[in-house]
């Protein structure tokens, strides 16, 4: 009776299972990369524009994940820094006449970092739900400023921006397909930056701070200084996302930095269960549910997103049940 259940062999299993799992992941990554590259050549313009939106949200989701999943600071306001970056890029393009996308990207990231550094002393006094609410308040304040300060931001009418160029002297990227490939390239650059960041001592200390701040302080670490550095990094990343948003749409209005933007980024981070890869996948999923499935379901995208939120919340229970069910079938 006790022997009928197939148990995994105890010692041998992990040894040869690990590399197979690793190579499968590499294969999956390559496949996703190829599909992303091939997209503008096989899909219609609408799908490509949705994919552009997904890339912007993926950058914002990585920024949110750095705070939420790694440093243990649940943020519902990363759209504020996205907005600062986006308006910086847009003003650079319209008023400053700088059409180079990469310059816009760098300056927008710097602006996001500065905005994060200015607001951090206020936000880092709080933790948990209070941090969530404080970050939400900062985002709403930023959106209000963007709407009211119409001499600079164009108010609710928004700003139209010219297409970006990649290199001085090259023609601007007018077609959706090229703009999408430009976004994909920028996204890969940011992914590499994030990957380097994830291996840094800073991120190790951020993870530790999320687990036990008092222990970290007792080891001699200045906890708030590390959280500040992490917060500024997240702000820079969100600011870079803002530059991509402007490049993707050629248009920017206060609506782009509303609550739903922050909330979708937080949802994507939550779907990602604390990992960066998961946050990117979550962002793609969220945009796909909202924009691709929203039309055939008669505009019930918010309901679908709500459903996605519930699935994430019940994910442990669901996997648990599935595992029990699988085991009972094997028996």
């Amino acid at each position, binding site marked *: 009776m006790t022997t009928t259940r197939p148990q995994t062999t*105890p010692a041998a299993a992990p040894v040869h299972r690990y590399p197979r799992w690793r190579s499968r992941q590499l294969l999956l990554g390559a496949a996703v990369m190829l599909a992303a590259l091939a997209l503008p050549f096989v899909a219609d313009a609408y799908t490509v524009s949705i994919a552009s939106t997904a890339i912007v949200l993926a950058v914002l989701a990585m920024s949110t994940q750095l705070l939420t999943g790694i440093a243990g600071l649940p943020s519902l306001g990363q759209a504020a820094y996205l907005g600062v970056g986006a308006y910086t890029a847009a003003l650079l393009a319209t008023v400053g006449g700088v059409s180079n996308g990469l310059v816009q990207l760098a300056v927008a990231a710097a602006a996001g970092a500065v905005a994060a550094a200015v607001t951090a002393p206020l936000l880092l006094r709080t933790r948990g739900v209070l941090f969530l609410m404080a970050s939400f308040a900062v985002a709403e304040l930023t959106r209000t400023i963007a709407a009211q300060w119409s001499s600079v931001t164009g108010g609710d009418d928004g700003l139209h921006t010219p297409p970006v160029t990649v290199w001085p002297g090259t023609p601007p990227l007018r077609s959706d397909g090229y703009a999408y490939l430009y976004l994909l390239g920028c996204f890969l650059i940011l992914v590499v930056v994030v990957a380097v960041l994830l291996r*840094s001592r800073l991120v*190790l200390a951020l993870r*530790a701070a999320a*687990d036990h701040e008092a222990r970290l302080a*007792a080891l*001699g*670490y*200045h906890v708030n200084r590390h959280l500040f550095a992490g917060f500024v990094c997240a702000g820079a990343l969100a600011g870079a996302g803002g530059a991509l948003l402007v490049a993707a749409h050629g248009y920017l209005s206060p609506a782009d930095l509303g609550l739903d933007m922050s909330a979708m980024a937080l949802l994507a981070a939550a779907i990602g269960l604390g990992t960066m890869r998961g946050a990117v996948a979550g962002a793609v999923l969220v945009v796909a549910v909202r924009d691709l499935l929203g039309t055939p379901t008669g505009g019930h995208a918010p309901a679908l997103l709500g459903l996605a939120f519930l699935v994430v919340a019940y994910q442990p229970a669901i996997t648990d049940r599935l595992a029990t069910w699988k085991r009972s079938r094997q028996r």
Partner: protein
Amino acid sequence: MTTAMTTATTAAKTTSMLRLDGVSRRFGGLTALHELSLDLPAGARHALIGPNGAGKSTLLNLIAGTLTPTTGTIIVDGRDVTRLPARLRARHGIGRSFQHPAVFQRLPVAANLALAAMPGRGDIPGPISGPQHADGVAQVLDAVGLTDYNRTPAGQLSYGLQRRLELAMALAQRPRLLLLDEPSAGLDPAQIGQLTTLLTNLGADTTILLVDHHLDLIWSLAQTVTVLHHGHHLATGTPDQVRADPAVRDAYLNPGGHPNATATATATANATANANGTERLAPRTSPGPVLLRVRQLRAGYHGAPVLDKVDLDVHDGEAVAVLGRNGAGKTTLLNTVAGLQPVQTPTRLEWDGRALPTRRPHLPARAGIALVPQGRRIFTGLTVREHLVCALAAHRGADTPSQARTQAWTVDRVLDLLPALAARLPHPAQRLSGGEQQMLALARALLTQPRLLILDEPSEGLAPAVIAQLTQALSGLVADGLAVLVAEQNLTVATALADRIIVLDRGHIAMTAPARDLDQDGPRQHLQALLGVSGPTATAAADRVPADDAAQLTGAAESGLR
């Protein structure tokens, strides 16, 4: 103001490592620690003892910088650190452990140590540094015996290993002053032996100040001892002086002077496997029919079973103690019976002749099984009175066959049994001392009108006097015919309560014996072997078994890391 200079300071006044000058701390209206002065020379081994709620942890937190003192100054190695934050005190050479093991739960073991040993840890974020640093971490991992776990998240380690990791983290900082808050709590006798050896072998360049209730550890390690009581300084001196002090005996070692309490308190203090001469506190009637029947129990967390083929009967009115080392599966067994832990086939659980529902803890609770969990699990937001009302209300209207048999538990009857709670009724439960919280957890369980009371490590982290009170209360319950299933590291408490002991070893039942048989040599030696205390006392075992290990750890912590 009390002034207490340790006797050792006369010789080494010039190399004072820690000096407290009139240090006190108030929380609102409550003075947790009255003005205290203390001087520890470099290399001292000083212990802080006292009943639960005496202000010991407060004092450690004041020295470590987690709290700031209301009055007084703290001087560490010649520098006034009174106003420094915890991180700067850490850099000044203060290392500490916390009362509950403070490790970074989600990070792998190696990363925990890497953070602790980070060269120039602090302000400039940069890449995780080079190979010589990785070597140092690997060396410490090897020395603490955690190499196999280096990729395991620290939160998945057993309690004993988490304590080990935390101590290794503190040592990796190479502290000059090491503060330890109850390092032996939750460890089994063999692990306490290892801890004693490890601390004994630390070099003289580390000064140790430790708080603990395990008196064997204190007497064998400490050169000087300070006793606190209700935030007041009671005595400071050598272990012999302190043991002889009548005030200390009254406050800590055996308050009340009740003969039974005395026997338990002093015997308990030795928490060794010495079951000789233990007297049963409760004269017993013969147990009734089988109340709980466990057959072929198999349970675990991630596939691999923690328990396998465990058979157990608990009769009505019988007290059974579950013994075993940490990680043997004691808590899993108790949680399974209480319905908190899913079981795997082919487990059969029967209660009073019927199948016992699992994974729905409210059903066993209604059927008459009450659990006093490890670590008490007090509702932090509620007052003592609210706890009691809540427990009583949950059971109103439920089917309680015990009421027919015995008198039902009411708040008044519970307060009669546990008078310490009566004075604390309006207080928030998280303000209670550890002993009072344990009493509250017991009261909460009794008010659900149980026929079987399950206790998981009831004496953990409690002062000897409180353990004596608790043991007496529990013995009274057993004598009144309540069935009890108790897991306990403290063998003296276990044998004082139980009719029968079962010993778990790596998920299987390794031994079953009537408690009275432990007076005989054969069963006692078998038990001691299973618990990892192969000598007559824990200290003797400690000297032999893990000495190499400990020496390695201290060596590596001191040499390998920089």
